[in-house]
């Protein structure tokens, strides 16, 4: 066991799987000698060389096409998009090509591509760096979308993604990169894709969330505990496909649900979670499902980020409304 930050856990997962499987190739802008703008690929170029860890020209679309062609040639490409706000440049490769190939070719050709990309608010980045665009990916058939909330899950989910025959969009929240450490086993292990985790057990209200909002929900749960409300927190971990069973099990136990996301209300995957709960367990609900999300504006200018982003206080408020309905 080592005490690692989330970014160290990700690097370790990449390193260990690259050592094991020489088909794994890492490439993107500044991922080589520089070790990535966040040091996620630190040391990999030195260890594995130019052929396996490669700096590309500055063109996201080209990076996506490269991943496609390499996958056809039997490699396991790990492409980095420096910030997920730049995904629009490569939407066709991800959502128009890689995601569709298995279907197009009659189930015979897999695309074991991992798209790694940082996103997320609270660190005062310039425009188009922090946007929560997981909803776009989650609405694309053929992709799996993974968002870890802690170092342990990050390593296990990354290892599982690198071994997945299906394409995975792996989104790394910038505020989680170095904000805390976790005990992470040194050996390789996987956290299964498509499986949510109960981050905290409770009996009065289910808080269903993902990414950085898991931290805010945990803070909110402590506050709620003081007020005599026991909150159960479901960390989705994979936002597409959803682990519906785990969500429903929790909601049927508590009878109340608060769905929390950092993305704008019209974006993210919160609406899909609410829809599943409504379809499957409306008769267990004691109150309407509450939704904590960001306002439907463009991602905010740096100085107003903290007023705009959802936080623990918003979650506490909605949870109380739900419990007192």
């Amino acid at each position, binding site marked *: 066991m080592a005490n690692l930050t989330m970014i160290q856990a990700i690097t370790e997962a990449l390193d260990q799987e690259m050592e094991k499987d020489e088909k794994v190739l890492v490439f993107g802008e500044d991922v080589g000698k520089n070790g990535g703008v966040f040091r996620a690929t630190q040391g990999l170029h030195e260890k594995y060389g130019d052929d396996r860890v490669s700096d590309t*020209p500055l063109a996201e679309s080209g990076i996506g*096409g490269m991943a496609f062609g390499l996958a056809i040639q039997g490699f396991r490409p790990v492409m980095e998009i420096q910030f997920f706000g730049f995904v629009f440049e490569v939407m*066709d490769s991800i959502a128009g*090509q890689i995601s569709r190939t298995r*279907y197009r070719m009659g189930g015979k050709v897999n695309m074991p591509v991992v798209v790694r990309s940082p996103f997320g608010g609270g660190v005062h980045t310039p425009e188009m760096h922090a946007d929560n665009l997981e909803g776009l990916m989650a609405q694309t058939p053929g992709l799996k979308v993974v968002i870890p909330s802690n170092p342990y899950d990050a390593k296990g989910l990354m290892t599982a993604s690198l071994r997945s025959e299906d394409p995975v969009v792996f989104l790394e929240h910038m505020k989680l990169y170095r904000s805390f450490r976790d005990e992470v086993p040194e050996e390789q292990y996987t956290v299964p894709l498509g499986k949510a985790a109960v981050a905290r057990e409770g009996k009065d209200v289910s808080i269903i969330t993902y990414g950085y909002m898991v931290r805010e929900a945990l803070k909110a749960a402590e506050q709620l505990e003081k007020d005599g409300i026991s909150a159960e927190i479901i960390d989705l971990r994979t936002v597409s496909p959803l682990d519906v069973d785990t969500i429903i099990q929790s909601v049927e136990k508590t009878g109340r649900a608060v769905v929390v996301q950092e993305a704008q209300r019209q974006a993210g995957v919160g609406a899909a979670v609410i829809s599943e709960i409504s379809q499957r367990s409306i008769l267990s609900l004691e109150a309407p499902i509450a939704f904590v999300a960001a306002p439907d504006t463009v991602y905010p200018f740096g100085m107003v980020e903290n007023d705009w982003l959802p936080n623990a206080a918003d979650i506490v408020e909605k949870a109380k409304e739900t419990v007192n309905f």
Partner: protein
Amino acid sequence: MANKQPVDYEALMSTIEAAFPMVQILDKDGKVVNEDIMPDLSDDQLVELMRRMVWSRILHERSMALARQGRLGFYAPTAGQEASQLASHFAFEKKDWLYPGYRDIPQLIQHGLSLPQAFLWSRGHVEGNNYPEDLNAVPPQIIIGAQFIQAMGNAVGQKLKGSDAVTFTYTGDGGSSQGDTYEGMNFAGVYKAPIVFIIQNNGYAISTPREKQTAAKTIAQKAAAAGIPGVQVDGMDPLAVYAVTKQAREWAAAGNGPVLIETITNRFGPHSTSGDDPTRYRDQESFDYWEQRDPLIRFRNFLTEKGLWSEEQEEELIEKTKEEIKAAAKEADQAPKQKISDFLKNMFEEPGQNIQEQIREFEAKENK
């Protein structure tokens, strides 16, 4: 007296134009105008190339007819582009990879796709994309430009594996305006990837003439932006197309990196069978001009002159091709009915709960 300018723009522009002359071997009547660069092809190979071009013209004519009868779906006409398509493919080897655009079906078939499968692709049946193991190709690309970046990745992969195979990809003159077209060539240059990019300039992107795509005098010169060789070739001349493609293949296979080839060609018909009427944007003169430059006419003349081709030979080939096409269309009719449950199973190697539930739902419906 005017001040001397730091840069002579006129001289600069004429230098660029002069660097991309059009390569030609056969003139429009089939006379050899450049013996020095005549490719080394045996009589049998010359005849085989002619057979493929005639086959392609017949495939085009029958495909138009089948589309009119509703027995084909999407079809992008190829008549006029036989030299550009078949003679470039003639320079490939079986181990080479093909990333075709939607008009590049003849090359795909010559590379190993069965005719019934090509028809199933046109109709919209998954079996059309169920490629045999030994067919080194991906299905025709509908997103114009995407094939350039993907083929680049394919070539980078071939290089990493130490393969001596080359990747080929095609787009049109309109496609030369896409960002992916530039990105594909530029990445390939940086990675020195073994790939030949072919831009078939047939004069029109649906109704938009080539001059409205770019102020560049040639498309071949766009290679300069990627720092790779660019060549313009008479795309109605099978020998020139073959010679240029063969040289590009050798250059790429030897580890020198990519080449861009622009073929100057023309499509005699509409953009596609989906309702395009070229008489809305092209005058009769343009059709007449290009039909006189038909690659079949000049190659037929060339071969007849050499005593390698006869009218009877061509007639026999046409009849045989028609029979083949008829049989293929019939075989395509036998393809199994497509099931939604199968498509759901094709989405993922490891489907999630959502897909598993839908598979059960659709299987129940389909088994009713």
